[in-house]
């Protein structure tokens, strides 16, 4: 379980080292994409803990959610409606739900380990 966490840290370090920046106009899209990616990540962790992890679902969901969130934001900018809010709400709610499920599973695992 520590390997994905290491992956996260390595990604952050590489990003900070290479000092890549994107034009500030696109930072909105990137933030939405990050939210979608985080939600997918935690969804994958939850699936792994519930033993229903399917790698194809995970990887396809990752890229698809990112694309969907970015296109929703893009469409919203051009229609003049804040459609990115829809993505924020949806992914935010799912993020909290996934984290809650993860927390519940981990707690039951530790308490059951403790009882053994």
């Amino acid at each position, binding site marked *: 379980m520590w390997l994905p966490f290491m992956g996260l840290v390595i990604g952050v370090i590489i*990003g900070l080292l290479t000092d890549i920046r994107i034009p*500030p106009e696109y930072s909105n899209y990137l933030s939405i994409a990050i939210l979608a*990616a985080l939600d997918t990540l935690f969804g994958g962790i939850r699936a792994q803990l519930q033993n229903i992890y399917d790698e194809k679902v995970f990887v396809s969901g990752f890229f698809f959610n990112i694309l969907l969130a970015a296109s929703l934001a893009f469409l919203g900018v051009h229609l003049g409606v804040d459609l990115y809010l829809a993505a924020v709400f949806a992914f935010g709610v799912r993020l909290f739900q996934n984290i809650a499920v993860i927390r519940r599973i981990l707690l039951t695992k530790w308490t059951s380990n403790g009882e053994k």
Partner: protein
Amino acid sequence: MVGTQKHFYFTVTASIVGFMVAIQFQTVSEPVNRDTRDTWELRNDLMSEKEIQSDLLQEIRTIEDKLTKYENDREQSKGELLKETLEEFKIEAGMTDVTGPGIILTLQPLVNELGQEAPTSYVSPSLLQRLLNELNMYGALHISIDGQRVINTSVIRDIGTVTKIDGHSLNKLPFEIKVITKDSEEAEKLLKRIEISPIVGDFFIDNLQVTLAQPEEDIVIPGYQDTIRIRYMEPVE
């Protein structure tokens, strides 16, 4: 570790997410460019923008007038209006003679206290260009140097050892620089500005004397005689 294959994709995805977070963090934490102009600079900028706006409005008005004129006179005299417009463009390009109020500057060799003339009769092109810039800055509309009209594509440069403007050599002092302004008031203002400008001192250093006459009502400036080369010109998009 069981299922390292699964964990591999997961790790790659996690690192991608970390990468995106780092990019976003660096992009957002760039210092915002603040507008540090103070009140007076803002006023100046506002003033120049207002001038630009009034100029543009005037241009719009004249062009719209011309448009209505074209539409009204479309049946009669098709060629007449086009000829009129051609004449207007010729005047604007500087190919016709112009008469109007303005001033005349005479460039002479410097006469020192003993009454002797300085030996050099060379006018440097950069000095002349600076004089032109000053005149244009203070309201000159049409300028001619030694009978040669100065237009948008005129060049003053050193060819051989002689200063030439558009092929016309300026090697015989004294010669006249004629300037036409919008009206007599502008001519007065231009004269006063040139009088107090440091450009006269720069000519003095080069052993040249700039004599400024009082503004006159009817100064005649000849048109540009040579052909204007447009081979490398393109219309602006």
